[in-house]
């Protein structure tokens, strides 16, 4: 089976406070530490697990981004992905959901995938819209918010997270599947994994390779636009107390004063 996983390189959410450049209104990516989206690590783990249980399958990681994004793909390879594709083109800068999905879909279409894994949402943009748009561009069903996935013949069955529990949902293949964060245990690259990653196939594509017109993607094709960036309203400062053994009493007093007991 041909399995794909879409990944993204983002400013490290654990160390970097994401900022927008006031002039370009784009995410600041220079001078900050960039990592493979931690949500994607879970998704890659899910894809690897499925590949291994199915056997006779190949797993390819695909990403759209600047040249630096190859680092994120190298990590995916070190985790155990077989092959990587980076789509990089200056015309892609400033892409919105539709531009991103259109580009990834065009690259995926050439590969005739059986299954496409995505994270439910990225940890920097949070829109959660790219996987559904990819599915639509490819005319494929989408199985979303999966916390478990099984492939049975030409069907996939997932447990789909809901507000109050889960749904069991099935769909024919090929399909797009999105993985809910935390559903699969992360895989940490071993030294051997890192070494072998260097020898795995890695290809790079530009817009013209995909037959896409620059007007359909990037800032030129964007269907959403940021007008201004302002400051959020801050909450009034509270009282900060160092615990000297009486914290429980201080909190209980607060609760009683506000009739919360």
């Amino acid at each position: 089976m041909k399995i794909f996983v879409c990944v993204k390189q983002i400013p490290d959410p654990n160390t970097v406070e994401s900022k927008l450049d006031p002039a370009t209104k784009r995410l600041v990516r220079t001078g900050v530490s960039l990592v493979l989206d931690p949500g994607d690590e879970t998704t890659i783990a899910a894809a690897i697990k499925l590949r291994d249980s199915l056997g006779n399958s190949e797993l390819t990681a695909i990403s759209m981004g600047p040249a630096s994004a190859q680092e994120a793909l190298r990590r995916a390879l070190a985790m155990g992905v077989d092959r990587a594709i980076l789509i990089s083109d200056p015309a892609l800068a400033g892409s919105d959901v539709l531009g991103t999905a259109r580009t990834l879909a065009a690259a995926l279409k050439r590969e005739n995938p059986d299954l496409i894994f995505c994270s439910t949402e990225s940890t920097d943009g949070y829109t959660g819209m790219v996987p559904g748009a990819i599915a639509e561009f490819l005319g494929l069903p989408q199985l979303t918010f999966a916390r478990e996935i099984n492939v049975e013949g030409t069907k996939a069955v997932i447990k789909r997270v809901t507000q109050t529990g889960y749904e069991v949902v099935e769909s024919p293949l090929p399909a797009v599947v999105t993985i809910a964060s935390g559903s699969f245990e992360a895989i940490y690259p071993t030294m051997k994994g890192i070494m072998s990653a260097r020898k795995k196939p890695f290809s790079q594509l530009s817009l013209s390779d995909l037959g896409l017109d620059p007007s359909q993607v990037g800032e030129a094709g964007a269907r959403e636009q940021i007008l201004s960036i302002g400051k959020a309203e801050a909450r009034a400062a509270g009282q900060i107390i160092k615990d000297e053994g009486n914290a429980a009493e201080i909190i209980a007093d607060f609760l009683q004063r506000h009739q919360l007991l």
Partner: protein
Amino acid sequence: MAKTIWVLVEIEDGRPARSSLEVLSKAAHLGRAEAIVLGSAAATVAPSLGEFGAEKVYVHADPTYDTYLTLPAVDTLSALLQRQQPDLLLFPTTYDVRDIAARLSARHNLGLITDATDLRYEGERLEVTVPWGGENVVVATHPYQGTGIVLARPKAFSVERFEGRQAEIEQLTVTLRPESQQMKILDRVEVQSEGPALEDASIIVSGGRGLGKPENYRLVEELATVLGGAPGATRAIVDAGWLPYSYQIGQTGKTVKPTLYIACGISGAIQHLAGMKGSKYIIAINKDEHAPIFSVADLGIVGDVLTILPQLIEEVKRRKTQL
């Protein structure tokens, strides 16, 4: 000209979902609100929507929408879009609607703005407020003429009554395509949790990495129980596999606005703050006095959560018996 705004109304337990009504009320303030309601209970729900702001309701009472996810609803909205061009599709952010919005956007090349906490028209131009990162808000728009999509953050708007408003009801006569009946719901499983659901709880006690290890999360649950609240979690410990996704509070996960939020061992990553800083009172317990969570706390305790929580549980129990 008044703007025409479509709202997709979801049904929960035979009633219109609260998140849909929040958005419908907002739409009614912005212009002419028209609701679309699909599924076997659609016909019974439709007449009540006038009271929540709808001037017109499109109804397709077909059980196919209950069994097959996303595509039948996308097809119907798509058919309706070919007939009429509203100014805006204003949708609630829920599991099912997110999937529908993404496909609709791709099918019709509609600009898509997510996580909106406010929106208005400045003349002809739509201006959408979207919180960004911890300290910023962005104002975004669809930079073209024609229909666009906005997804509203849950609880951004309140449900309002429009007394005496009667909606015109139109029965849709679309034919649902068999090839769109692909993602089939085989079973729905409710996972029973004790106490109130996270999104309805007036008190939430939430835990993060600072708890050290999964076993210590029981302290959070115990405090939630004695306070009559619900336990929640950060993305970090959900990602680490301590708890299922349904516990997750934050920009990904659930947005909550309880009366009281107690953050235990939570540093306050932006993504977490986005989901809880609308709480009325916030108490934070954390070892690190520089933790960002203290910037939103009404009462912040710099101390060891594992020492304080057992004491607090006992203290709350003691005071409750005296009340």
